[in-house]
Structure formats: structure tokens, C-alpha cells
């Protein structure tokens, strides 16, 4: 009998307490489909034109393939550190560290973006209902208030937190479905004709379309807390990819057909244009509610995943061990929350206060987050077959999945670099990569043993095994 610990390395979390619906809500909220439904089709249409639906279809397939790679891990192990802890089992410390840095950037910046988005749409809602909106101090204050609410949201018992996410996300998706059903068949005034897509245009559209999916793996951070992790987590990740894909295709169809006379890519707010064409102003109010709630749920789900990655890193010993503490009663990683939340709130608040236009803050933050996610997705796809080979359970299908998904993700990453070249974003990403490199060097020098052993997960302990009495 191999040696078994008496206590899980990730002890302290509320183990095995979340039902399937609550775990599903994390992933769906992480992907924030409602917000993406309203904004992403127009971005995709800028390159793919009438081929927009094809770009979304390809992105859905890629997301399902990534989900299948994640499932190879989550069917066999339960972890709190999301893709970081999983990658460690396939690519070892270097790959896991890369994934960890990418995830900290992805989750951290997506949480910032979601906070900003929620504030922007709440502000727009107030303005639409007759209040005064749009002023800079109001937005900064809204970000701060939402950040405090989000802190409470991730600090409370995970069951309560997950139910809040479930409720908010369910309302948001219902509202958005109503909005898009109401807009089916709306005809926008004619605009410039769409670009001729061709296969190149459709391929270029896959990058923003895949960006709409980021966050769909958030449930993997709930592995320890899910009641039946080996069954629930892989399923909800796949279902989220499929369901989000269906919602995006529906939203894209509504918008592409609404702008059949052209102009989808040239309109800054295509859904609002469709609303005006329909002549039903209440739809605009619903739209703001749906998107603001979607961003709020996304903030909570992403923060939950972020603090659990930090928590896992602390248990691995590559960040201060104090961040691995959990609250004795609430059983959430309160130390990691205390460190992460101020940073997540300060960056968007500072950018808004400095006078950067809100919509630009949102767009740039989303772009940086996408970069982090794409790197983490690429690493998990590479890790899956290596992990299966290590444990002696390699079959052909997972190799085939990686053989398709990894080159596509590499191409998407390359397209990302090319499309962002020259702006401020590559500089920011370069600085983040540099910081990661310095951190890696410091760990190699000072903590080589901890670095070699990263990848703590909720492993089987002596109590879980039926042994001879």
C-alpha cells in the first residue's frame, strides 16, 4: 500500500458541498454569455462578414475540444487551482508555472473587466431610466461599491456564493434570450456592405469568437468543493462550451439577419440599433439589466477562481504560505481574497479616474485577459496526452483532440499577437511576461524544492480508502 496522507493538501475548503447546478453556474457565469452575445458578433463580423456564424461554429468546436482536454484531468482528479493544478500533472513545474501566471493574468484582468463592464451598464441603465449618468466619479464609485459587494460574495460560504451566481446568471440569460427573441426579424437601416469574408476572414473571426468563450472552465476551480467532482466538473465544462456556443450562434444570427442590408461591423452598438429599428425602448432597458447582471456574475465566478488559484499556489509554496489560509467558519480562502480584491478593484478604478474612456478600459482589459486564457488553454491541451501517458491510460482520441486543438490555439495566439501589434497591449503583456520570468528565476534560486513539487490537489487520503481492518 503506498503512503497516504491523513489530510488533503488543500484542506480547509468546504469539501464536497456543491450540487451540479451550483458548479454549472460558475462556468456559465465565467463565460458571461449575455455580455458577449451583445458585443462580440459585431467584432467578428468586422472580418468575417456574412461568415460570422461560421467563425462562431469553429470557435464552439475549439472550445469543446479544450473542454475535452480539461475533462481528461477533471475526471481523474479534483483540484482547487483550476488549469494551473491540472497542467502540473501533465507538463510538470515549468508548464504549470506558465499556466499559473497566465491564469493569474486571465482571471485577474477578466475580473477587472467584468467589474468595469458591470459599472458601465448599471450607469447606462440609470441614465436610460432618467437619472444622470456617465460622469467619471460616478463610474469610479460604482466600481468600488461593486468590488466591496464582490468581496462579500466570494468570502461567504461557497454554497451561498454559488447560489447567488446561479440566480444572477439565470436571470441574465433569461433576459437576454427574451431580448434577442424580440429582436428576431428586426431590420436595421442599410449601412456599408459587409466585407467579403473568404476562408481567411472566417479564420480571423475565430479569435474574437473564441474570446467570447473565455472563462467557461471556471468550474474546474470548484473541484474540491463539488459534491461529485469527477462526474460534475467535466460535464459542466463541456455543457457550458456547448450552451454558450448555441447562445452565441443565436445572437449572431439575430444580428447578421437584422443587418442583412449591411453595416453590422460599422455600427458601434448594433443591438441598440436593432432596438431602435424595432421601436420598442423597453428592450434597451432589459438589455442593460441583462448585461450588467452577466458582468456581475462573471466578476464573482472569476474572482472565485482567481483566489483559489492563489490559494493553491500558496499551498504549493510558490507564494507566501499565508495566502493559503482559509476562514475557519466560512471555509473560503480569505487571505487570498484580501490580497487579490484590492488589486482587482484598484486597476480599473485608477484607469477610469485617469480619464481613459470607459468602453476603452473594458475592451483593453478584455484583450489582456484573452491573452492569459489562450496561453492557459494551449498549455492544458498540450498537457492532456502527456498526463495520460504518465499514468498509463493513453488512448488515440485524446491525442487526436490535442493534435487538432493545439495548432488551432497556436494560430489563434499568433493572430492575437499580429492583431495587437503596435498598441499599448503588447507592452503590458511583455511586462507581465517579464514579471513572470523574474518570479520564476527567484523561485529557481530560492525555492527549488517547492517549485519542483507544485501541483497540490485534493488527493486521496487514508480515510477515503477502504483498507483491511
Amino acid at each position, binding site marked *: *500500500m*503506498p503512503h497516504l496522507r491523513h489530510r488533503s493538501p488543500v484542506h480547509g475548503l468546504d469539501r*464536497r458541498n456543491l450540487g451540479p447546478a451550483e458548479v454549472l453556474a460558475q462556468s456559465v457565469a465565467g463565460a458571461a454569455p449575455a455580455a458577449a452575445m451583445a458585443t462580440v458578433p459585431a467584432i467578428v463580423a468586422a472580418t468575417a462578414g456574412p461568415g460570422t456564424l461560421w467563425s462562431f461554429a469553429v470557435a464552439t468546436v475549439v472550445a469543446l475540444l479544450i473542454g475535452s482536454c480539461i475533462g481528461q484531468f477533471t475526471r481523474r482528479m479534483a483540484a482547487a487551482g483550476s488549469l494551473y493544478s491540472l497542467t502540473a500533472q501533465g507538463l510538470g513545474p515549468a508548464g504549470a508555472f506558465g499556466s499559473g501566471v497566465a491564469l493569474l493574468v486571465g482571471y485577474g484582468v477578466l475580473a477587472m473587466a467584468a467589474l468595469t463592464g458591470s459599472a458601465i451598464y448599471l450607469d447606462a441603465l440609470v441614465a436610460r431610466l432618467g437619472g444622470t449618468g456617465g460622469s467619471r466619479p460616478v463610474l469610479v464609485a460604482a466600481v468600488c461599491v461593486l468590488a466591496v459587494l464582490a468581496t462579500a460574495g466570494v468570502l461567504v460560504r461557497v454554497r451561498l456564493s454559488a447560489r447567488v451566481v446561479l440566480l444572477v446568471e439565470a436571470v441574465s440569460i433569461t433576459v437576454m434570450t427574451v431580448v434577442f427573441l424580440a429582436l428576431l426579424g428586426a431590420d436595421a437601416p442599410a449601412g456599408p456592405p459587409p466585407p467579403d469574408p473568404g476562408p481567411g476572414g472566417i479564420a480571423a473571426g475565430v479569435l474574437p469568437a473564441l474570446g467570447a468563450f473565455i472563462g467557461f472552465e471556471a468550474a474546474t476551480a470548484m473541484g474540491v468543493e463539488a459534491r461529485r467532482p*469527477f*462526474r460534475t466538473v467535466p460535464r459542466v465544462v*463541456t455543457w457550458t462550451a456547448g450552451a454558450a456556443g448555441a447562445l452565441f450562434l443565436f445572437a449572431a444570427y439575430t444580428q447578421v439577419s437584422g443587418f442583412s442590408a449591411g453595416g453590422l461591423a460599422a455600427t458601434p452598438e448594433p443591438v441598440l440599433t436593432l432596438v431602435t429599428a424595432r421601436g420598442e425602448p423597453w428592450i434597451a432597458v432589459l438589455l442593460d439589466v441583462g448585461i450588467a447582471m452577466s458582468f456581475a456574475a462573471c466578476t464573482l465566478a472569476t474572482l472565485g477562481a482567481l483566489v483559489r488559484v492563489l490559494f493553491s499556489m500558496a499551498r504549493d509554496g510558490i507564494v507566501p504560505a499565508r495566502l493559503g489560509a482559509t476562514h475557519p467558519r466560512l471555509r473560503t480562502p480569505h487571505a487570498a481574497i484580501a490580497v487579490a480584491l484590492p488589486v482587482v478593484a484598484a486597476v480599473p478604478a485608477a484607469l477610469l479616474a485617469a480619464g481613459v474612456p470607459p468602453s476603452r478600459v473594458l475592451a483593453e482589459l478584455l484583450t489582456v485577459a484573452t491573452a492569459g486564457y489562450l496561453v492557459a488553454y494551449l498549455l492544458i491541451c498540450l498537457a492532456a496526452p502527456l498526463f495520460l501517458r504518465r*499514468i498509463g*491510460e493513453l488512448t488515440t482520441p485524446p491525442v487526436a483532440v490535442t493534435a487538432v486543438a493545439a495548432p488551432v490555439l497556436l494560430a489563434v495566439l499568433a493572430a492575437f499577437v499580429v492583431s495587437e501589434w503596435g498598441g499599448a497591449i503588447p507592452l503590458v503583456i511583455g511586462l507581465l511576461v517579464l514579471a513572470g520570468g523574474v518570479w520564476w528565476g527567484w523561485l529557481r534560486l530560492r525555492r527549488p524544492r517547492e517549485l519542483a513539487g507544485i501541483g497540490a490537489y485534493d488527493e*486521496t487520503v487514508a*480515510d477515503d480508502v477502504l483498507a483491511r481492518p
Partner: protein
Amino acid sequence: MTDPAPLSGRQPRAVRSALAVLEEVVASGPGVTAKEISAALKLPQATTYRLLNLLVGEEYLVRLPDLRGFALGRRAARLALPVVPRPPAAARAVVEHLRAMVRWGVHLASLRGGTLTLVDPDPDHPPSEAAVLARYPHASALGRLLLADQADWRAVARDLRPLTAHTVTGAAELGARLADVAASGLARQCGELRADRGCLAVPVRDPATGALVAGLALCGPATRVAEPNDELVRLLREHAERLVPLLA
């Protein structure tokens, strides 16, 4: 591929293979790998891996920390009838001592391995039938001691059916009761198993590991059990304490 095909009753081969996989893990001992199982049973590898993942998902098997090897999970214990040894004479003497002091029924039950077995029922105040106690732990005080000790009590108490008008059948309400039991170390039910009877029960734990070993229960008229009964609870705890070195 991402979602293992669910087994239906129309797939006897799959069920048979799953049972063979379980048996193979028992025969080979903890640490056996998927490849070894596949070779021993001459099952296709992909099928073996899928069955293993399914059995791990259902917690009949666990993966060992290297993620390669398998062992029986705690849930597998529920496939076999527990062999419960008769308590030693010294332990029965302690229970007998308590019986002489109170006018209520005194029962001793083993709670090892996640199952409830009466090992010293009171002959003068016969308890409910053993099968009922074992099947509906949510309604008895001893059963609640057992449930309060489980990481996931829902896996053990699947059928929260009402046995009397007073039985707690709501999952949330039962969860709250069990949290109370875990915090106070005292389980109580008044007329939930039989309308006119009630029970108080306290745990006996292994002092070294803290594992739940047995439960000692006092049963009497439902109305009397509902009272605070501080003196009775003190007596019950005192005797449970004396059982610790004899049973653990």
C-alpha cells in the same frame, strides 16, 4: 468521449465488466494500474479506462496519489454485510450499569464503516427493527450520529421518507439538525421513528483518530425525550466515556 455513455439496464456486458473491474482491484490489492486491470481481464483499454473513471466518479474506487493506481473507496464497504464483533464483556457491563440506573431503554450500536448495527439492544425495551434502523438513518438518533459524521450524508441517507408525522424529511432541515449533532455531540429524535417513542444518543469516538466507533442511546416516551434531560444526558455521556477504552 467527454461524457462517458451512461449505463442502462440494457447493457449487461458493461455491468458485468464493471463488477469484474471491482473484483480485479480487490484481488490485485491497492495500487493496481489501469493497464494491469485491462490486461488481467482482457478488456479493451478504452473500455477499462471508461469503467474505471465511472467507478471513481461513483466513489467505489479511488485513485491513489500518483493518479496511476487504484484502491477500493470507502463506499465499496457498503457492498458487503458488516462483520460486527460482539462487544467485550466489560463494555456490556457498562451498558448494563446504565440500564440499572434509568427506567429507559439503553441500546449500544456499532457505527463503524458507515453502517449502523445494533450490538447490544436492550432486551427489556426492544428497539425498532434492525433493518429499519439501518435503512432510514435520518429518522433515528443513532442514525443521525452516523450521518453527522459523514463527509456527504446525502450519499448514505438517500430515501428521506416519513415514518411518522414528525419525521424530518427536508434535506435542508435535516442538514441543519446534523450540523447541530456534530457541534453538540448529542442526537435527539422525538416520535420520528415511532410516534410514541423518542431517543437521545451520544457518540463513542476513537481518541487517537477521532473516528466514530459506536453510539449509545437512551429511548423513552417521546414527550419525555423532548425535555432538556440534563441529568440523563450527563449520565449517558459519562457511560459513553467509559466505553471509549473498551470499544476503540
